[in-house]
């Protein structure tokens, strides 16, 4: 049976843990606010980029640029899967859910899967388990910049155009709300084509380009890949802070419950000791 002093020590330990989780929650909450503003600001650009590109991609010759090639015409090769995880842990099931989803993706794929990882947690997991990691970038989420997305996008485009990869997918946590993250898999390359709306196609048959379509696509397509990569990273950053905030909030609450229980137990124990001592005194006096 633990002594009173042991109990006091345990309560103190849990209290200081609770202080840490509470502080982490506050920090995550303020970081979340910034990350949330960034992703909400970045979404319109990514959305408009995609819709502009889709409407164009359906109207131009796919031969114009390799990034538009239909999936059937690609050489056989591995699929390149970009996984965006967090750099740090202590954010609930944020990383493990994502890595589990990556596992099922690799299991379900009909060909080999090579990986590109952004974020320390994913890098550690995949390189430790001996996966084929072609691209890695860690320590990005502390100060996330467009250039991080640019270098990842360059790696993706290079692997794709050189024929090293058949297609490129993107796996990340989407920020749905503060309480909800959603794991998302998207095909990044080749760029998905929509079926053109017939009325649209007639209306836009005589589209002007300045300068030539080829030059525009050479600029536009890499930028599109960068944009989608950047958006995925921002989504993940916001989702990570949200997940950490929720996890730390739960931890703080659990610590509080634990402190209550331990305190109750300690008080009972102290009372029991007092009662026992009283009985000893009383029965000692009777014996005289």
């Amino acid at each position, binding site marked *: 049976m633990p002594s009173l002093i042991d109990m006091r020590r345990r309560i103190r330990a849990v209290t200081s843990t609770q202080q840490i989780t509470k502080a982490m929650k506050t920090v995550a909450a303020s970081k979340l606010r910034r990350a949330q503003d960034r992703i909400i600001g970045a979404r319109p*650009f990514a959305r408009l980029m995609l819709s*502009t590109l889709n409407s164009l991609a359906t109207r131009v010759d796919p031969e114009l640029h390799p990034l538009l090639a239909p999936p059937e015409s690609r050489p056989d090769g591995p699929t390149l899967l970009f996984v965006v995880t967090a750099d740090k842990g202590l954010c609930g099931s944020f990383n493990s859910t994502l890595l589990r989803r990556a596992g099922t993706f690799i299991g379900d794929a009909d060909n080999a899967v090579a990986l590109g990882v952004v974020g320390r947690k994913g890098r550690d997991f995949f390189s430790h388990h001996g996966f084929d990691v072609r691209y890695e970038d860690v320590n990005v989420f502390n100060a996330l910049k467009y250039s991080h997305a640019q270098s990842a996008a360059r790696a993706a485009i290079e692997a794709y155009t050189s024929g090293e990869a058949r297609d490129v997918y993107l796996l990340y946590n989407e920020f749905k709300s503060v309480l909800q993250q959603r794991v998302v898999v998207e095909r990044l390359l080749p760029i998905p084509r929509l079926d053109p709306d017939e009325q649209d196609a007639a209306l836009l048959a005589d589209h*002007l380009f300045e300068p030539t379509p080829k*030059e525009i696509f050479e600029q536009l397509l890499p930028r599109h890949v960068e944009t989608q990569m950047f958006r995925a990273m921002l989504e993940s950053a916001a989702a990570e802070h949200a997940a950490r905030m929720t996890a730390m909030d739960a931890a703080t609450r659990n610590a509080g419950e634990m402190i209550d229980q331990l305190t109750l137990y300690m008080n009972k124990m102290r009372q029991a000791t007092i009662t026992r001592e009283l009985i000893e005194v009383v029965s000692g006096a009777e014996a005289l």
Partner: protein
Amino acid sequence: MEFPSSLTFELVTPERAIVREAVDEVQVPGAGGYFGVLPGHTPLLAMLQVGELWFRQGSERFFVSVAYGFAEVLPDRVTVLAQVAERAEEVDVDRAEAAQQRAQARLGGRAADIDVERARIALLKSLVRLRVASKVRVRPSGGF
């Protein structure tokens, strides 16, 4: 097809959405020169250069400095995806002036290892931003 009476104008950068409004006219710095867009324009996709963009609502014009990106023009909407953009009232004049001096010093220095093209673009950007910023200051006194 009905002829549209105004344009839906959207200007976004990777960081944030800058403008989303109904406007009467837009002028865009395209790769091949400035072009104006009125409602009912032919569909057009253009690359942007570093320059000054404006849009008109009624008789009031608003200026924005933009650099790189694309503009998609449809009969009833203009979408500008700019890499960098700033509304006139948001331009940090001190910073733009500092950038201008830096770029000029670099161009004037004639050191062997400088990237002349980069310095030239930096200079151009800072000049555009300053010009755009000066237009917002003119407006209260009523002048174009």
